[in-house]
């Protein structure tokens, strides 16, 4: 795998394909670009997207699907032509992921369901005596959902060390700031109190994320949560922390400006 970071490349694909498809959820995709880049570039073990003993990845915050498609593309599991049909009629690439796509382990879109799927997948790995790991990416607001905490308790009770939940802590949810809508603080403490090993990390430092994720013990001990501090809309100044980009597609001039910012940063 190359040493070049994938986060910036994922961001560029997110802008290009969102523009072409005329779809939103751009801010969420930019928020998780480095997290998904870290997992797919440097951590996820799989001989291919259908390798039965592959590590599993569950994008529980399914609305960031395009960032995942970009990573599958960079990994070589998704073709250019397929990617170019994001959001098109009869394309399997919708704005939430569907398991019919090779490399999508679980369909998601209804928040709060991924951690339970992941706990089952991690338990299965243990029962099969497989060393594979399971990664679940959740949003911080997803921690509003009660079902998520059922899975959190379950994984801690069964000491599923092979389960890693990455929390995209961008502090924003569909109608405003998480702290104003349903306070999550202290988020890391809550996960710790439920028996998880918790790391608080910079969700935009891809290299450090890879290092952290690789170092987590997966054979014994508690499950792992990475509370990743992120910026909603990261990398495009006028999208950062702006609720509008949870929903709206770009105009052509916004697209040009956004791309120019990414290029200037690179």
């Amino acid at each position: 795998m190359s040493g070049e970071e994938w986060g910036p490349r994922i961001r560029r694909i997110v802008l290009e394909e969102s523009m072409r498809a005329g779809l939103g959820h751009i801010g969420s995709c930019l928020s998780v670009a480095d997290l998904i880049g870290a997992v797919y570039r440097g951590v996820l073990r799989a001989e291919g997207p259908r390798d039965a003993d592959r590590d599993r990845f569950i994008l529980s915050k399914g609305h960031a699907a395009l960032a995942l498609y970009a990573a599958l593309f960079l990994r070589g599991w998704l073709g250019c032509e397929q990617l170019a049909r994001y959001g098109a009629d009869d394309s399997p690439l919708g704005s939430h992921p569907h398991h019919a796509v090779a490399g999508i382990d679980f369909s998601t879109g209804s928040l709060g369901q991924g951690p339970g799927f992941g706990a089952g997948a991690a338990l299965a790995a243990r029962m099969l005596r497989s060393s594979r790991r399971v990664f679940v990416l959740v949003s911080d607001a997803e921690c509003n959902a009660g079902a998520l905490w059922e899975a959190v308790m379950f994984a801690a009770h069964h000491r599923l060390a092979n389960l890693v939940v990455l929390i995209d802590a961008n502090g924003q949810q569909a109608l405003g700031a998480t702290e104003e809508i349903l306070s999550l603080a202290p988020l890391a403490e809550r996960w710790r109190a439920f028996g998880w090993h918790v790391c608080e990390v910079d969700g935009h430092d891809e290299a450090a994320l890879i290092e952290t994720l690789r170092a987590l013990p997966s054979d014994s001990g508690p499950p792992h949560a990475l509370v990743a501090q992120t910026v909603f809309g990261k990398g495009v100044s006028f999208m950062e922390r702006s609720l509008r980009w949870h929903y709206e597609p770009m105009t052509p001039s916004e697209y040009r400006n956004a791309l120019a910012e990414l290029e200037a940063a690179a």
Partner: protein
Amino acid sequence: MRTLEELAERDPRLVLLTGDLGYSVLESFAKRFPDRFVNVGVAEQNLLAVATGLAEAGFLPFVYSIASFAALRPYEFIRNGPVHHRLPVRILGVGGGFEYGTAGASHHGLEDLGAMRLLPDLIVLAPADAEQASAALRATWDLPDPLYLRLGKDEHARVAGLTGRFRLGRAEQLATGDELLLVTAGAVAVEVAAARAQLAERGVSAGLLVAASLQPAPRDDLAAALDAHRVALVVESHYAVGGLGSLVAEVAAERGLGCRVVRHGVCGRADAVMGSSAHLLRAHRLDRIGIAETAWALARGGR
């Protein structure tokens, strides 16, 4: 449960999960297969989520809870998990209808079959007695599609003449009759069979069809039986909306059959009456006497 243990003996993929229910029912499995038994706690959503994750990895997860809890609390997990992923999760909902009697309305399963029947490619079964439930498990345990099975509580009750017959997508005709057709599924079938005997004593000749496979639906068997009768009474311990009665009415309407279909289930809110299972069946005219009277009125009374 004995059948499940036999199947688990045969196939190491079979695992059993419970939402902290099954006292005096699951112990034997848990003792025999401790590595394949998981109590997820009082967490039915996670019960279905974990089963989905296990099934994706190649296991055959059976999940166990009371019918109302198994079907309703995790409904969206059933939909987005096993159904959308087409994974072989088996949901065993024990004690549908009023089988949990005095436990009250929270424990009564009056919507499970209708709710499950809405989900495409989910196999939905309501065996009439334990022998048929065992046959249904044997017929379906390793199919690729997910499954919901309403499991009766009484292991000893038997529907006379059924003798454990079960075919997926088929109905079992236990008796033929001239004046009306009784169609049923689930544990209330025992009452329906008894009602039929009472009707016979009063000179009313009724056919009896057990349609335990609600999905895939025994459309041809239902149509053939309906076609041979002027009127059919569909009896179920379930709300009259959405379950077997609705299914039979759909078949009659879609096939343009002349047979009148009357649904005999629970009408309106059912949480006002308290009491034993037998009392609740009586209160909703779903005991043998209530069923026989309703059927008699239909066959002879013109209503």
